[in-house]
């Protein structure tokens, strides 16, 4: 053997080892472990089933146009590639049109480049089914490895992937290359949704073991409305993913483990860095996450020494730099995000020939005149910050006031929606708005928290008080606090906006759904019922999805329901299931003889959530063309008007 060949061999072995290490590190950092990867792939395969290549709401146009502008190297939109510049969310400053949610757009850029590259060698109409089949194959291989049935799972997966690909190609239609920016936004959103599921899995896995964690992770995308918005170019899933990341990092920061890539303080800093990233996607929601994190983190941290606080401040500031940068480029002010500028409008006879000047910007509030003089130099900055906070706290306060004075609003937003003429008129005269519980009947199980909390309250009193030191000692309890704080902040902040059109599943409150799943998984009665009755639950879920979905569709198509009628039909069924589930969860908290029924009801309620996602995707909301042509063929026969 020549020395050249030996050297080459050595180099390839070295490369192979390096790439295996890199893969292991990627797997751990992104998915935690192989099961996390399975959760991720399963969510993407599910979402792909009803991926419609099209725009759901007209403000999707803004993001597509802004993404194209960004890929051309500037933030202002020159010529819209889709729709008009008057799409909601397009703003005007100094005569130029701008988009919003720049964090989301920058994160989407690699997806855009990837799909652009693939589009040069592949027909998009064939590429999308090809990618889906490869995902199915990857899922099967990983399931095989996790369950030690590698051969069986791989062969099955390869068969399914090939058959699905052949069937899809047989009925494939061309997909125009001009939809590439839309595809990029949809793909990046689907990945964000999948990562949300992974984070829920990782968090619950550390608290309650693999099974509960897999159930909670999968439910995030397959049962909850996160799946509904997973391929819609809007900000929601990105903020939810970052929120889940914050909660996970917070939980890890409360442990002194040595197995992680980051120290406890490292995770604490990471939580604040993720707040910065969320702010880049949407300023107000970033602020909500920041307030929630600060309120829970500072009082429950084991130490708040000066060094750590400075580090937190630096981490947060650094993570906010991209937000400040795009704000400055758009509005000339680091703290004036596009959302506070005036909406773009084409010139009309009344407003003259040039687009009108910006009316937005921080309000003219001034600070206390007794401000220490050295702060005076920072006054413009402080004014902007205080204006942002006061706008924020005004809306929050308004929400809290409404919650007290108009409890009906809480009821209609969270439990049972109602017919609101103005909203329905804006939704093409169809009542398609669901309350939180209607959109995810599993939420009924949250009621079990009431007796559980009463019981633990009694125990605490019996043990003569448990103060913050107790919370400090328990990472799980502190994490509960963070989830509750964030959920309440989002709920109160957006409460004044409801009822609102184009929400379908109360999308402003999307972060509540994984929070609710977390709240369900944290109940010991629910976990006990599942752990002792897994088979019952899984059977109930499988029957519900496989048979129930078809039955629902038969009723909806057979009775020629309109879209609003179909969705309200789901709402009533969901409310029924949620009420039963609520009652039985309370029962189980008091007496474990309810456990088998609870397990079955959890399966059924979850199945209703999945059915809603599948039928919305395949039947009720048809737009654009389907990524999987076979699904498109099916959808033509089950359209609902």
């Amino acid at each position, binding site marked *: 053997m020549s020395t050249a060949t030996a050297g080459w061999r050595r180099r390839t072995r070295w490369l192979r080892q390096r790439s295996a290490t890199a893969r292991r590190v990627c797997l751990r950092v992104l998915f935690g472990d192989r099961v996390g990867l399975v959760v991720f792939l399963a969510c993407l395969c599910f979402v792909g089933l009803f991926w419609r290549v099209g725009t759901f709401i007209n403000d999707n146009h803004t993001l597509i146009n802004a993404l194209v502008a960004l890929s051309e190297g500037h933030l202002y939109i020159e010529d819209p590639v889709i729709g008009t510049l008057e799409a909601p969310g397009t703003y005007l400053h100094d005569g130029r049109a701008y988009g919003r949610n720049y964090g989301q757009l920058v994160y989407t850029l690699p997806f855009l480049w990837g799909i652009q590259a693939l589009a040069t060698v592949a027909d998009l109409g064939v590429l999308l089914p*090809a990618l889906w089949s490869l995902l199915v194959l990857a899922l099967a291989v990983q399931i095989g490895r996790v369950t030690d049935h590698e051969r069986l799972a791989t062969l099955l997966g390869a068969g399914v992937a090939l058959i699905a690909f052949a069937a899809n190609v047989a009925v494939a239609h061309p997909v125009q290359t001009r939809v590439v920016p839309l595809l990029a936004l949809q793909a990046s959103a689907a990945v964000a949704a999948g990562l949300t599921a992974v984070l829920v899995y990782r968090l619950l896995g550390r608290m309650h073991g693999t099974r509960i964690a897999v159930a909670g992770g999968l439910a995030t995308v397959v049962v909850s409305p996160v799946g509904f918005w997973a391929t819609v170019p809007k900000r929601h899933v990105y903020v939810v993913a970052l929120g889940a990341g914050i909660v996970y990092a917070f939980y890890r920061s409360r442990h002194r483990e040595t197995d992680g890539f980051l120290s406890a303080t490292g995770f604490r800093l990471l939580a604040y860095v993720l707040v910065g990233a969320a702010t880049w996607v949407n300023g107000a929601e970033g602020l909500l996450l920041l307030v929630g994190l600060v309120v829970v983190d500072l009082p429950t941290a084991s130490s708040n020494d000066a060094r750590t606080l400075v580090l937190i401040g630096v981490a947060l500031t650094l993570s906010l730099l991209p937000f400040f940068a795009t704000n400055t480029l758009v509005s000339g002010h680091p703290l004036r995000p596009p959302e506070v500028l005036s909406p773009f409008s084409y010139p009309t006879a009344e407003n003259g020939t040039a687009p009108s000047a910006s009316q937005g910007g921080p309000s003219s509030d001034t600070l206390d005149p007794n401000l220490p003089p050295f702060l005076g130099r920072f006054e413009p900055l402080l004014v902007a910050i205080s204006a942002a906070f006061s706008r924020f706290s005004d809306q929050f306060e308004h929400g809290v006031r409404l919650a007290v004075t108009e409890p009906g609003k809480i009821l209609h937003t969270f439990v049972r929606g109602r017919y609101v003429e103005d909203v329905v*008129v804006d939704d093409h005269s169809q009542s398609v708005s669901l309350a939180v519980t209607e959109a995810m009947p599993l939420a009924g199980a949250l009621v079990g928290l009431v007796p559980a909390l009463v019981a633990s309250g009694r125990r605490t009193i019996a043990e003569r008080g448990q103060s913050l030191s107790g919370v400090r000692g328990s990472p799980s309890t502190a994490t509960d606090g963070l989830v509750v704080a964030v959920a309440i902040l989002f709920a109160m902040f957006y409460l004044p906006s409801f009822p609102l059109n184009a929400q379908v599943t109360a999308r402003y409150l999307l972060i509540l759904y994984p929070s609710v799943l977390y709240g369900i998984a944290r109940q010991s009665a629910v976990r006990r019922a599942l752990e002792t009755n897994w088979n019952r639950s899984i059977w109930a879920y499988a029957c519900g999805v496989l048979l129930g979905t078809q039955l629902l569709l038969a009723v909806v198509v057979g009775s020629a329901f309109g879209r609003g009628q179909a969705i309200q039909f789901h709402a009533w069924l969901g409310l029924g299931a949620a009420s039963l589930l609520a009652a039985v969860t309370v029962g189980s908290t008091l007496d474990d003889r309810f456990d088998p029924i609870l397990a079955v009801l959890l399966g059924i309620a979850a199945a209703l959530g999945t059915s809603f996602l599948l039928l919305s995707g395949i039947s009720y909301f048809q737009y654009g063309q389907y990524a999987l042509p076979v699904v498109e063929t099916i959808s033509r026969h089950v359209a609902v008007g």
Partner: protein
Amino acid sequence: MSLARAAVLATVAVIALTTLVSGPLVGAVDLTTERYDATGLGQGNATVSAVEAPETARLDSGVGAAEFYLKVPDATVTFESITGKPTVSYKISIDELGYSRGTTHFFAESDVGLATLSIAQDSFARSEITAESYDGQLSITLRGNGTKQVLYDEPITVEVDR
């Protein structure tokens, strides 16, 4: 090499190669077909022996939903013969609501015999529907070779089902 590994490699190879070969770079084969073949649409003619259309339609609210959906039953047309690709439009209009909606159906030579025409549902907010019934007009029109033949044009009663 194990069977499982071979299956994975073969599957990936088949999918990747098919995608490449049908892609713009190689372009050996085009695997996608246009959704609709629009060539020669509206060119042609047909002879119709029978037309049946409903005399009543319904405005119907339903489980939980309070808005109204206009449900027009299907009509049927019997074609004796078809040449080319004529179109048939099935249309309802309700003047009192300032509303009209039609659906154009495409036919080809293979469609001789009984054909069903339908109109997609539209919805109305609750405040729009104030009467107990509305008078509408239902029409079926055949178009081909630039000519227009009205096959059916009769009033229809739209009953409100509260």
